């Protein structure tokens, strides 16, 4: 790593574009060389001559010849990504940063709380947990979305529901006539989860406001601050702790994170912004 030029992307071909929701698409990419990442680490995807943006892969870290990112259309680069059809060549840099601490989840009841497109990084974690399910007590996955149309990864949800030790709960802010699950913000699910908190570790990923209220709720439930893991979203650019855009107090989110224990970051300024 020391000798490599980490500013230089490797090339990857977009094999498939999957429409996950009206605002979210997944991009399956085949990198020119095998690509290894740990769940929760992020990559930079380069659109040649256009721009670069950070994403945490949503595919399984155990697969090294392909990887997938799930992208909400929010800005300049993501809008251009949403125009892609497949067959394009993009650049990939990384992986960068510190991911989810898998070893800290072993022998635990893992409570995974996701909001919106925050499901993307969590899916790579869930793939790992599925592969390691003998080493964990159980997985409770709570997922909240705006409305049924914005609920992503429907086939995946239906599959993991059936896995032994996995429980899935979903809620939407605004239901329609087809919706049969919970209604309300993600934290309503936390009122219903059945976990032994002393044996549990929580992982939360979603929009800042959702993470803020989820952490508040988890604390009320009795989770210690050092048993709550968050994946922070900042303006990561270089990925190397140099460019300064993702500074969150004393931390470079790209290098020291993006996954943090809540107690590590709670005193830093504006963590929910």
């Amino acid at each position, binding site marked *: 790593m*020391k000798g490599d030029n980490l500013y*230089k992307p490797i090339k990857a071909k977009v094999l498939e574009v999957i429409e996950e929701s009206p605002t979210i698409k997944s991009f399956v990419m085949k990198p020119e060389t095998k690509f290894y990442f740990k769940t929760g680490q992020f990559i930079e995807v380069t659109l040649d001559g256009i721009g670069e943006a950070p994403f945490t892969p949503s595919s399984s870290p155990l697969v090294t010849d392909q990887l997938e990112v799930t992208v909400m259309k929010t800005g300049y680069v993501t809008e251009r990504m949403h125009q892609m059809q497949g067959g394009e060549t993009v650049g990939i840099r990384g992986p960068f940063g510190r991911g989810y601490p898998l070893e800290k989840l072993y022998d635990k009841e893992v409570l995974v709380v996701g909001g919106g497109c925050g499901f993307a990084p969590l899916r790579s974690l869930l793939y790992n947990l599925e592969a390691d399910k003998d080493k964990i007590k159980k997985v409770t996955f709570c997922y909240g979305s705006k409305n049924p149309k914005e609920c992503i990864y429907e086939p995946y949800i239906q599959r993991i529901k059936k896995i032994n030790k996995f429980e899935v709960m979903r809620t939407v802010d605004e239901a329609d006539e087809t919706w049969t699950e919970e209604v309300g913000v993600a934290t309503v699910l936390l009122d219903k989860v059945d976990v032994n908190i002393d044996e549990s570790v929580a992982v939360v990923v979603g929009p800042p406001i959702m993470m803020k209220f989820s952490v508040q709720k988890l604390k009320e439930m009795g989770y210690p601050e050092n048993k709550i893991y968050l994946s922070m979203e900042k303006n990561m650019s270089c990925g190397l702790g140099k460019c300064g855009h993702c500074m969150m107090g004393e931390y470079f989110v790209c290098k020291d994170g993006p996954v943090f224990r809540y107690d590590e970051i709670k005193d830093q300024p504006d963590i929910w912004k």
Partner: protein
Amino acid sequence: MSNYHSLSKQSWEKALSQMMKNYHIYAPLAWGESQDYERIDEDSISEIIYNHPKPASPLKTFFLPVKENVVNIEKSDKKKIIMGIPSCDLSGTNILDEMYLDNAFTDPTYNKNREESILIGSDCHSLQEHCHCTTYGIKPYPEENHDLTLSRINDTIYLQVHSNKGEQLIREVKEFTPLTEPTENEIQGILDKRKSVEEELNKRNSDLPNYSDTGDLINSSGDEIWKKHSETCVSCGACATICPTCTCFLLLEKPGFEKVRHLDACQYPGFEKVAAGEDPLNELYKRFRNRYMCKYVWKPEKFESIACTGCGRCIEACIGNISKNELFLELKNK
């Protein structure tokens, strides 16, 4: 054997003229009332300014140019000799090295630019209005990160060797002109000059809080002082871009999967804004405070080296007349 060498100014200029064949030589030249690094040629050799305090630009611009391709790395035709570097800028290199030559990743262009430069430090024989290096533990004469120190007294140039690169350069100078070993009296003259400037700096800045206190002062401050001192800030970013230790950058895309690193500043609106809309630095006083937090609170948590050298450029560059020293005095005397 002493590591000092001396020669007449005339002989030094003759040697520089010869060395220009093998090196690009940069030295401070007059810019109106100010002075800045310029690449010298035959005509400007005699106009080089010696032992003046800091040039307008910080040394970092040689290692981290405003704009540089970091993927398709340009080859250099000649190495650089950089003259007239003040001690504050040389000490500012510590944190740049810590950031850009860290154990996990050696930044290729920074490393190349650093390796290809021979650094001639310069004793400051006078001070500028806002010089306050000694407040942060830096002497007004180079002690680290350079190859030679140069002091000019009257028409004699004294060169003190600090590294193998410096030793090598001395050998090259000797090819063009003989060098003498200065007498003890002459060396004492250099040391006396250093001491008098240091005393003057200490006297002038005796009220300013030292580097280790600045962080606590900031941590115990409320929002009000930042709002007050940022009233005339126009987010131009001059304080950051002119700072010898501020190096935040943008990566611009160049077709062919190349990337161009461009100097950036946390003072610009939108610096930390994410695509979804969140922006921790959405207010002027927060951006203004951010730079202080970075230099005096956060960087000290992460790095061994100091992130402010007391050069005073941020004060001189500010079109809103904002003075960090006045801010710190107000915090201290609160």
